[in-house]
């Protein structure tokens, strides 16, 4: 719950930049590369932005909660006001506990799975093991680019499929009822046709 996270990290909104290297893991010359990769995502997917936060967060479990909290509580200075945090993808790296997490806003909720973000993070594992954080981030974003391309094309072909994934349970129940009633109606019609 956000309230639990607020209790741990604070209930106030925080102002950060999209690329916040609090842990100082990016070497000189790394920042332009990472920013270029972030900008590429925004250029190709104009509804979406990427934010990266590095910092020491303590336990691995904290990184899960921190990502969720930061994406809900942060005000990104260098993101246009009309673009809500729901369109964001946040990559959090804790070099102390050697863990990284990726969360995304509601805009991408129908299109991305946790497995997708895990695949993205997996691409960086080898680099981060060696302390090559920037290389790992670039690989993560490159893989994310490919997944988003694919999902965008799929959504254009079959938007209903993705819409059904985010329908509230009640509406899903309505949908099921409509489908079942349709089946029953057709079955009754068939019975009428068979019985003289």
């Amino acid at each position, binding site marked *: 719950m956000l309230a639990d996270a607020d209790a741990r990290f604070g209930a106030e909104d925080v102002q950060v930049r999209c690329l916040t290297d609090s842990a100082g893991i990016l070497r000189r010359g790394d920042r332009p590369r990472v920013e270029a990769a972030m900008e590429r995502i925004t250029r190709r997917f104009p509804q979406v932005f990427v934010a990266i936060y590095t910092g020491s967060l303590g336990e691995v479990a904290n990184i899960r909660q921190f990502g969720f909290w930061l994406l809900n509580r942060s005000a990104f200075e260098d993101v246009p006001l009309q673009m809500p945090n729901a369109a964001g993808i946040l990559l959090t790296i804790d070099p102390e506990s050697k*863990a990284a997490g990726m969360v995304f806003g509601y805009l991408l909720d129908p299109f991305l799975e946790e497995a997708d973000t895990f695949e993205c993070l997996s691409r960086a594992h080898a680099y981060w093991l060696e302390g090559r954080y920037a290389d790992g981030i670039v690989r993560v974003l490159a893989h994310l680019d490919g997944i988003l391309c694919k999902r965008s094309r799929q959504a254009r072909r079959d938007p209903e499929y993705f819409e059904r994934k985010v329908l509230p349970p009640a509406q899903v129940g309505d949908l099921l009822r409509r489908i079942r009633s349709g089946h029953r109606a057709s079955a009754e019609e068939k019975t009428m046709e068979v019985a003289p």
Partner: protein
Amino acid sequence: MVPFAGAAVLEEPAFPVWKDGEFSGLQSSGWVAGSVLLTDEPIPDEFGAPKSETIQIEQPKPEEVAQDLAVSPEIPEEFLPAYFAERPKSFLIDPQRLLSSSDYRDRLSFLNYHASDSSIDLFVYVIGGDQEIPSAVREEETIERFFSAGRPAAIVFYYLGAPQRSAVYLSPSITDAVSAAEQRRALESSVIQAFEKNRAPEQLEKFLVQMSIRVYWMERMLAGESTARNTSPPLVPRVAASRRVAEDAVRVHGLADMARELAIPAGVLFAAVTIAMVFSAWMRSRARYFFPEFEVEGRLGGAHAAGVGAVISFASAAVPPASQRDQVPDYLRRA
């Protein structure tokens, strides 16, 4: 004619003469031995046939005599500058276009290949089989004038369709090193090879292959290896091997020519494919992707996002990503 014959030899001994009454005595006996030979009278015809008449041979007509006296046509004057005005810029000189374009190209390719492989260039002047080089042109003087400088060269005046009329000259720098006999042998063997074929262009091809081999030997002589020639293995197998190499070279050149002909279309095709790929990649890079926006019910009290996404640990290489899947507790998954 025996030059050392003396005047004494020219004096014939006197014939014996009959003594008085000796001949008439023998005649009375009925037969005189050797009387047929030892007489000044003409030998009687053995079969008594009438004396043969003089064979009448028709004399040639005046126009036939005139035709026989006419010399072969000279190379047309308009082509003389192209032949003899300067040192040729190409190894194959055929200003009269006696060879077809494809034959010319093939032969020239071979000569170019020869030049790239040999220290002695081979220049070939192609002349009509019935043509003559004008008397005003002196081949030796021409060769000395044009080929004194530069790389050593063998110059062949080849009469198309009449390879036996061909002549070979060497540039002055190598004339002394290669004997006249060797030059003659080179020419003869090349002519023999040429006559294995009937068509004039094929004759030229065979001629040049053999001449190229012979030039190779001349090159060896220049390198001072001629002295070892007598102790070297028999010539025939080596010449055969060299000929095989030369024929292989001709085949390779055929393939190279074909490759050259296909180079432009292949290059155009390659460029078109490359441009298409670059354009496609450029278009892909410029492509914009959008997502339909659905109304998503908020969860976990989050106004912008819910769930924790994926987490990965890179603390140890012994814990690969594959073993970290499905770490998200069920209670955090979307219902």
